[in-house]
């Protein structure tokens, strides 16, 4: 039953402000994923919550208690580090038992806790081995086990999967999802730059950009209703296409002039938008070839056939079409999309109200 509340948190290193105006409420038992490009401050934010870095200004509350100046050991949190940070001179059992031994917990209780964690993480055969004799995936599980034995109210994961190869990463992602299901009353904050990890694991996602929160929402919220161009392009792969357009008429019905045609959208925009230069956003998977004028037209430069889908590139636009479409190479193509899947951005911000979520 531990919520985390961040109020107007800021962090500076020397004169450099790396986090600014962070307001965030993490519900008890929630798995929140923080994503963002490198250097956006996501790891720093996690370290502030962990207490590894002092907070420059703002208020951090964990479980209803202000934690700014509470030492990390008493915050009731455990952290899993990107490069595992296992103690190389201790075997797996000692690694997992260390926190409890420091806390002066009795031998029997330590043994029970370690055994239970080892069973949960399938590490029973490795308990007497040293970290250097473990594979990457096993090390990662030991790091998680070390967090589990302490029975913390809050788990912090700092890019725990980024040092694993692709196959193992998928497996470990599933394992974290299972862990979350088993420890459903624990609050977890997971930092990653991998949007696939974010989409699959998160109850909610925080997109961080340049030290500020760009958007918070459920994974599909972010996918379907991005509030900014940045979020629109950060979530989803390949990134959303942006097509320059001019607003001819705004209001209840929006009319846009594109390079190919003029289109009408039965979706409201602010009336003062008329005449503005905007970007029409459409995801590659929502584009399809059409007989009409379409949204974009051009000659196909490259076709990347991935088997189940093909990525078609024309000009700067990417379309994701089902099946193998190498036949489209070199052809002139017109692409269109369902108006429900279109986004409109003015100066980087979404200006067209979205349809209610189905």
């Amino acid at each position: 039953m531990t919520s985390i509340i961040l109020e107007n948190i800021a962090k500076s290193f020397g004169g450099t402000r790396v986090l600014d105006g962070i307001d965030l409420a993490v519900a008890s038992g929630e798995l929140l994923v923080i994503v963002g490009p490198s250097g956006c401050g996501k790891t720093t934010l996690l370290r502030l919550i962990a207490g590894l870095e002092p907070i420059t200004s703002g208020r951090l509350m964990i479980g209803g208690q202000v934690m700014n100046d509470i030492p990390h050991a008493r915050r009731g949190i455990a952290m899993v580090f990107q490069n595992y940070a296992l103690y190389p001179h201790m075997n797996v059992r000692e690694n997992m038992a260390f926190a409890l031994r420091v806390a002066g917990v009795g031998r029997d209780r330590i043994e029970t806790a370690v055994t239970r964690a080892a069973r949960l993480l399938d590490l029973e055969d490795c308990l007497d081995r040293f970290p250097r004799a473990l594979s990457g995936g096993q090390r990662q599980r030991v790091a998680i086990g070390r967090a589990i034995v302490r029975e913390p109210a809050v788990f912090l994961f700092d890019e725990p999967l980024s040092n694993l190869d692709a196959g193992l990463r998928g497996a470990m992602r599933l394992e974290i999802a299972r862990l979350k299901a088993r420890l459903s009353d624990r609050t977890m904050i997971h930092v990653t730059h991998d949007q696939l990890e974010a989409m699959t694991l998160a109850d909610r996602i925080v997109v961080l950009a340049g030290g500020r929160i760009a958007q918070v929402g459920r994974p599909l919220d972010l996918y379907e209703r991005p509030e900014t161009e940045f979020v629109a392009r950060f979530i989803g792969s390949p990134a959303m296409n942006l097509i320059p357009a001019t607003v001819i008429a705004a209001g209840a019905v929006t009319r846009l002039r594109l390079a190919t045609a003029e289109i009408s959208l039965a979706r409201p925009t602010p009336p003062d938008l008329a005449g503005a230069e905007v970007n029409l956003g459409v995801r590659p998977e929502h584009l399809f070839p059409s007989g009409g004028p379409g949204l974009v037209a051009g000659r196909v430069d490259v076709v990347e056939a991935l088997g189940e889908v093909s990525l078609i590139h024309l000009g700067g636009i990417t379309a994701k079409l089902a099946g193998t479409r190498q036949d489209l190479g070199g052809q002139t193509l017109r692409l269109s999309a369902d108006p429900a899947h279109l986004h409109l951005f003015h100066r980087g911000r979404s200006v067209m109200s979205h349809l209610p979520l189905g």
Partner: protein
Amino acid sequence: MPEALTLAAATMLSVLFTCVAWVWGANRMLDLIWPATGRRAGRNSARAGLIRPWLFLGPALVFMGLYLVWPVLRTGWLALHDATGARFVGLENLRWLASDARLYEALGNSLAWLLVVPAVSTALGLIAAVLTDGLRWGVLARAVLFMPMAISFVGAAVIWKFIYAFTPEPAPEIGLLNALVTAAGGAPQAWLTRAFVNDLALMVVVIWMQTGFAMVILSAALRAVPEETLEAARLDGAGPWTIFTRIQVPQIRGTLAVVWTAITIMVLKLFDIVFVMTNGQWGTQVLANLIYDWMFRGSPDAGRGAAVALVLMALVTPLMIWNIRAALREERA
């Protein structure tokens, strides 16, 4: 002076020239004898390939043998002969050694040195490494602590001889230590002639010199300890002392052992400090100084000197092997 410089330069050039000439000439010779052409090209080049490494290694092996292996063998030979090396006496020297009180005094002192100096130097070095780490003026503190390493043992001994100096009345005292003692209301002491105290006084000099060495090596090792393991330990609830004793020190165990044994070996071979400060008198004799005494002083006895040298070698060798192995292991890890 200019002649000396010219001579040195000429020597260096001629050595360089000789080296190049040897490598080039030997290689050329080999190619002439077994040319890698014609009908037997394969066999010839295989044969030349067997010999080539030895040709290149040859000079180095000769000099190594001359300056490292030969003295060892010669020492062994001397130990089996009489004072002038003229007459074979078998194990007579060793038998004499076994009943020599001065050997036992030296061995006893060496043991005391072994117990105190490596432990204290390593411990102080470790403490200095930890304390100076992360301090803004840590670099300066480290430089000051390391400086004694740049002084020769003889220089250090002379400096400390002044510190321990004692002048009988009525001449004024010049020793720093006695100045402190008298300032505190005590009577000046002749530090270097008092048994036991003088041993400690000599050990202090070596500790003063070796702490900097230990500190530099250990501080490098401490920095190599992954920062994340320390942070993980902090999150695991460990305080600074627990982190130091259970996370940092265990991770630099290997380096600690290497530093420890390096100082141990140095201490076993210790000569200069004792020679300059007390010359082994007043109960401060150590093995190396004893060797020197027998070899070169009074009526020299090469046999007995060599016998003592063998004892020293027997003590140092196992440590040396262990130290080299540990260092190699560290390097690989």
